[in-house]
Structures are given as C-alpha cells and as structure tokens.
C-alpha cells in the first residue's frame, strides 16, 4: 500500500467524521450568557401597611416572621415585595421574564392573589395555619426562594 493511498483513506474517513461532528456536535446548547446580568437577590422584605412583616436578610440564616393573624373571610392589604442583595441594598427586578411563584402548604386555609408584579394579597379562607413559600422565578427556574413562613388564620366571629 502506497503512502498516498493511506493518506487518502485517512483523509476521507476523518473528513467524514469531522464534517458530521461540525454539523451536529460542536456547539454547547447550554449557555449562561443571559444569566450574567440579571440580579441575584439574597434576601427579601415583605411590607404590609408600611411595616415589614416578613424579612430574610443575607447575613442572618433565620427568617423573621411577624405576619399578623388574619380572620377567616378577610383579606390582607397589599403586601409589597422588595428584594435585597448581598449587602442588604434594594434590588430592582426589571426583566420581563421574571415573576413571583407561590406555594401554599394548605390551600383550604389561605389563598394568594397577585394584582401587581411585585405585590400580593392573602385571603384567609378558614381557621388554621398554612405555610407560604415565595420564589422569584426567571423563565422556568427559580433565582431566589424565600423560606416558608407560617400564616395563622383565626375563626370568624
């Protein structure tokens, strides 16, 4: 076998392999580029009637929960959400793909309505307690999770 034939065969096979590889396999479909610029809060403050009722600060592992009891059948005022960064400074969420997602441990006790992007209302449905978890979602994945906090609902008189 002449050297030229060998090289020709090598070139043919490798050209084929490489072309297939280039066509289908070179790019990484996972890219984090868009992730770089969006804010990454490390805490959040929930404010009701001008008072912070739930707080999670970055330098404190524990959640501060002063959420007032609600009477069954009542609805709270508007609870605003303010995210804060590593230094405790406010973080403004401006991405259109960001939104809040709530998880209620017992949906027969409370319900949540969200009239604004960064504010919500709690409706007390029946006596008992329920844990509420709030996540800051970015498209289909969470960027921040507020630890679950308990809301007590008292019986209506």
């Amino acid at each position, binding site marked *: 076998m002449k050297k030229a034939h060998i090289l020709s065969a090598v070139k043919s096979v*490798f050209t084929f392999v490489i072309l297939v590889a280039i066509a289908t396999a070179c790019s*990484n479909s996972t890219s984090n580029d868009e992730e*770089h610029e969006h804010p990454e809060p490390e805490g959040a403050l929930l404010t009701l009637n001008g008072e912070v009722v739930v707080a999670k600060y970055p330098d404190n592992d524990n959640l501060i929960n002063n959420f007032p009891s609600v009477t069954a059948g009542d609805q709270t005022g508007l609870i605003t959400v303010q995210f804060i960064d590593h230094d405790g400074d406010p973080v403004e969420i401006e991405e259109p793909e960001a939104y809040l997602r709530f998880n209620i441990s017992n949906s027969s006790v409370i319900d949540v309505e969200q009239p604004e992007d960064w504010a919500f209302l709690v409706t007390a449905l029946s006596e008992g307690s329920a844990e509420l978890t709030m996540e800051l979602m970015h498209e*289909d994945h969470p960027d921040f999770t507020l630890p679950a906090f308990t809301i007590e609902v008292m019986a209506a008189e």
Partner: protein
Amino acid sequence: MKTLFIHILFLAGVFSSGNALAEDSYLLSGFITDAESGEPVSFAYVHIEELNRTAVADADGYYEIKNVPAGNFTLSIHRVGYRTQTREIAIKESDQTIHIKLKPTVLGSQSVDIVGMADNMEGSNLQHASKKVMGSDLRRNLGNTLSETLSNLPGFDERSMGSAPGRPVIRGLGDERVLILQDGVRSGDVSAQSADHAVTIDPISAQEVEVARGPQALAYGANAIGGVINVVRNQIETSVPSRTHGSLTLNGESVNTGFSGAVDATIPYKDFALSLNVNGRLANNVSTPLGEIKNTYYESTNNAAGLSWVQDWGYVGGAFSSYFNNYGIPPDPQGHPNGVDIEMEKFQYDGKAEFLVRNNFLKVIEAEISLKNYTHKEIESNGSLGTQFGLVTTNAEIKATHNSLGFLDSGTFGIWSEVEDYAVIGSSTPDANSYKIGSYLIEEANMGKLHLESGLRFDWVLNKPVDNEPNSSIGNIRERSFPALSSSFAAIYSLGNGLSVGTSLLHSFRAPSLEELYSEGPHLASYSYEIGNPELEPERGLAKEIFIRYQSQRANAEAAVFHNGFSNYLYARDTGRPSNRFPDLNTYQFVGANAELYGVEFSAEVQLLRHIVADGSFSYTIAERKVPDEEQEATGYENNTRPLPQIPPMKAQFGLKYTKSGFELGSHVRLAADQTRTGEFETPTEGYTLVDTFAQYRLEGKSLMHTFSLNINNLLNQEYYNHLSRIKDLRPEPGINVSLLYRLYF
C-alpha cells in the same frame, strides 16, 4: 469550532510526517483446544495486548488475526471456564501458526496461566497493578451502573444517589481521582462533579472492564491516583473477524421490575469491520425493606455504530454513539418532596487510526480524536427547570509504542489534548472553557525476576471563564493556568513458586476543575448550593503501595498496604449553613486541605475440592484531613485531624461455590462495619451483613453459547445503608432482588 480545527491541525501534522509505514504484515492463526480433552474450544477471545488486535475462535476452535507486524508481543486468551493464558510470541517476518491449549479451571477470571512458567512467573508476565473483570464474573456482578458492577471487588465502593447515578470509589478515592474511560477515551460527562450525575457508560455492553493503576494510568491522566477504569466495547474494531460474531443479552430484576436488553455484533465485509451496539434499560421505583423509594425510576439507552477499514499498514475507523438517560432523584423532604427528574443526553463521535511502522525504533503509531456533546437538565416536580449542565469535550491523542531499546523492553509515549466548553443554566456559574495538553512517556524493563515500569507526564491546564468577574461574590473570577510534572514507578519481583512482591508509587497532579474554581449557585438534584473558590491551587498526591501476590493452579491471593498523601485535597465541604438564595439547600464550599488516606486490602480464591471454590476479600480505608489552627479556633474543634466525608467502612466478603461442567452454584456473605469516622455534618452509618446467592449455567454448542445467570441479592431482605449514598439518612438500600440474565454468544 476553533478548538476542533486546532485538533485537526494537531492530527494532520502527525499524519503528514508519517513515513516508513509497514508494508509487510503477517497472519497469526491456530487452533484452540481443551488441554485435558483435546476438544476444540470455541468463543475463546484472543488478544494481542500491545496492538489491541483481537479475534474470537470459531466452532472448530480456529482463530486468525491478520496484519500483525514482526515483533515480540504478549498474546492473551480468555475463555469462560478456562484459565486465562498469557504468552510471549515472536512474529518473525512470516505467517505464524500458534496452537493453544487452555486448561479448564473452576477459579474466576483473575486466574491467569502463564505459559511455560506457570510456577515461576518472571518478567513482563507479572504485569502491573491491574485487574480485569470479564466472563462469568462480569455476568454475575453485572449491575445497572458501572460502579454497581465493580462494587464487589476489594477496595471498590459505589457513591450513589438513587438507582441510576452511581460512580466508582476506589480505596476511598472518587470523583476526579478515578478516571472512567470507554475504549480508552474519557467519558465526557460531569459524573465526577456530583453524586446525582450518572456515568454515561452502560456496563451491559462491556466485553470486559479493566482497572489500571501506577505508571500505566499516567497515559490517561495525571489525576487518576485512585485508578483508571476502562470499559472495553471495541466500538472501532482493530481487526476484521473471520465471521460475524457478537452477543445478545436479556436481563430482568425484581427489586425495581426492571428489564434491560442489548445486542452487540461485529460484521466483517472484505477489509471492513462494522460494529453495532444497541441496548436499553427500563426500571420502576426500587423496593426496600421499608417500602418503595419514590422517584428512583430510570429509562436509558446507549447505542453505537462503528466502522473500521483494516489494511496491512494498520486500520482507520470512526464511530458514532448516543446515550440517553431519564431518571429520578429521590425526594428530599426539606425542599423537594417529590424529588427531581433528570434528562441526560450525550452524542459522541470518535475517529481512530493505527499505523504499523517498519522501523527499528517504533512499532506502532496510534491517533485518536473524540468529540462529545453532553447535556443534562434537572427538572423540578412542577416541570420547571432547576439546573442545566452542558459540556462539549474534544480530545485528540497521538501515541507511539517503541521496540526494545537498550535495557528497555518496550515503552509508549504520546501527546494528549482536551478542550472543554462548559456552561450551566440556573446558577451564577460563568460559562468557561478548559484547555489541557499533556505528554507522557511510560517505559518497561525486565531484568530476570524483576519487572520495572516507570512513567513521566507533563500537563498544562488553562481554565478560562468567558468573562472575567473580578468583583464576583465568590472572589476574583479569572483565568488560571497550572503546569505540572507527574511521575510513577512500579517494581515487581518474583520470589518463585508463584509468589511475587511489588511496590508502586504515583506522584499525581490535579488542576482544580472549572466547577471547583467558578461554581456559584444551586444544584437542585444534589440538594446543595455550591460555592467555588477562584484561588484554589492544584491537588498534589503521593500514592504508595506495597503488595504481595500468589498464583497457582489451585489458588490466587493478593494483599496490599497503601498510603495516599495529599498536599491540597480538593473537595466540596458541607458548611452546614443554608444558602441565602435557596434556604432549602445547604452551601457546599470547595476547599483544599492536607489529607491522607491509608489502608489495607486482601483477596483470595482457593480451590478446596475438585468442584468447590472458596473466595474472600477484605478492605479498610482510613481517611482524614489536617485541621488548621485557625479552623480550630473558629469552630471550637479541638483535634488536629478530622475524618474526611464519604469514606467507606471496613468491608469483608466470603463466598463458596460449586462448579461443574458449565454449572455454578454459590453464595456470598457481605459484611460492613459501622462507619463512625464521619466528616462535618455527616452522620454515622450502621454496619450490615448481607447474603447473596447465585447459579450460572453455560450451554455450549458449535456455533452458539448460551449462558444463564440467576442472582438473588440481599436474600434475607436486610435493611441496610450505604455510607456513600447521599440519601442514606432518608432511604435504605434495595431489598431482596432476584435477577435473571441470559446471554447468547454467536
């Protein structure tokens, strides 16, 4: 794209400089017969180790390997039911006929027959610190994962997190310290990174599994201080078989109502060999003595097609393979009560060539290029994406094997390169690339009863984020480069009468990985929030081992004492603190620490009576890290050392089997002691005793061989916990499992 062109240029340079290629090569052929009955032995696997040329004996016991150059080689012949035979052969510029007589044995696949020197092993026949799992041992231990398949070997354990993700741990060393290869090429996945990531190699199609340590391991990387595990599938055949051959495998098991199947075939056509592997697995949730573990299902398939063109001068070939695995991670009541689902896929393209060289110095030149595109998504039970990992890996390698040179009997040298394109969605980890280049030289010499091996390897690693982030919350994210020299040495001395002693040393080097340097963010399925450290320095290790081996017709035994010292052991330390952003996830900080792992290992197999064989093994590893003064002051911890996490307990295993005419019946008892030496925030694990039983039957015909393996693991349905399982505080290991494996060789 740029990296691919770099690799193409790299290979093109070598091809264009090739000269003096072999124009003459020869045919090696012969008949394989039973040493006692004289009957032909079909389905024997003949292997020229230095050239990786293989053949399978036909119904008449005839084998042939074409295109063998002149030279001295090691020929090994494996066949279930017979002692593996190794012999030195010399091809002297003419076709060669070598008839082989195999001795029947009731011992396992580690039983090796050294032709001509059975009781006085010398020189290269002693081999280095390596193991092979094949034949009946492979079928009996075949698990759903590679690590499960190997976990009964002494010193081997399995890091797990449910049914699908498992990775081998050797002598307490895992992750990046154990390299996993398929046909000599890195797997291109992120299984070393985290317990929830599966290895993208399915053991069901493995023809054999090799484990290498010491100088030979340096050919694959400087970081494999634990060892190199190579799954041999031969997707690119190195020789054209004389007929179509292959196997069909069917397997079912009760513990998860799982089913798997595989077909492997090699088809010759003129000078071409077409290799096809198709396999798939399905399983439901796994059962335990405490009930079913939710979300431990899996569905996977790993398929490949390869074509090679074999000529007098060598061969050239290519292969394409795909791997898909959808599996569940069990629930964590802290934050993911329904568990996490993982969707994993990998596409792999390989090209390989070998050139036989007519040259006084060189014997063979091999070239290889491989491209792997890997993605996996971790999905919450509500369907939202938690984390997504993407890794595109390109490897290229050129290596050459030389003839004897002075006092050196043989050697290999080569250049290897790798480019990784890594990205994560769902965390703050920046996109980053890793560029690696390495060169190595491994030499062997035999001096009478002394066999010597040594290896040197130089590596240069550049880890580079796409964008520098000097003010990142984890530190100054920037490019880092790490050059280093690694070395290894091994010596084995024959004491006669089948007894040999040896030692091996390995000075390893491991650059911090992209994840260890730059990670910052939630890792959903491993229930962790990972924090990298851009200032990490490389890990350097010094592995030392002394061993003694005995081999005879009726017994094999090996004992080893080992010590691995690390000047900067890199690992993710559980801080015990919840993440600010994701309070249901604990933060894991990548750190380096001075550490040492040491222990003992023993295994033996003895033929007690003509049809009765006993075997046993024992292993124990102690691992601890130094605790600096400042950490003692900060944490109040008062000792200078602290156990490392995820270290296996002391383990032992005893077995007895009856074997006659292709039938085996036996039982094993597996014992593990309590593991009370725990790392930070790690809980102790109770010991256990398990009983397994098995039966195997081999039905041999002229053109077909049927094997049946019935295994019952955890016969007494014991509740037990694997210390290396990330969910061991929540879930026990599987209960009683009845599995039936049928394999047809054709």
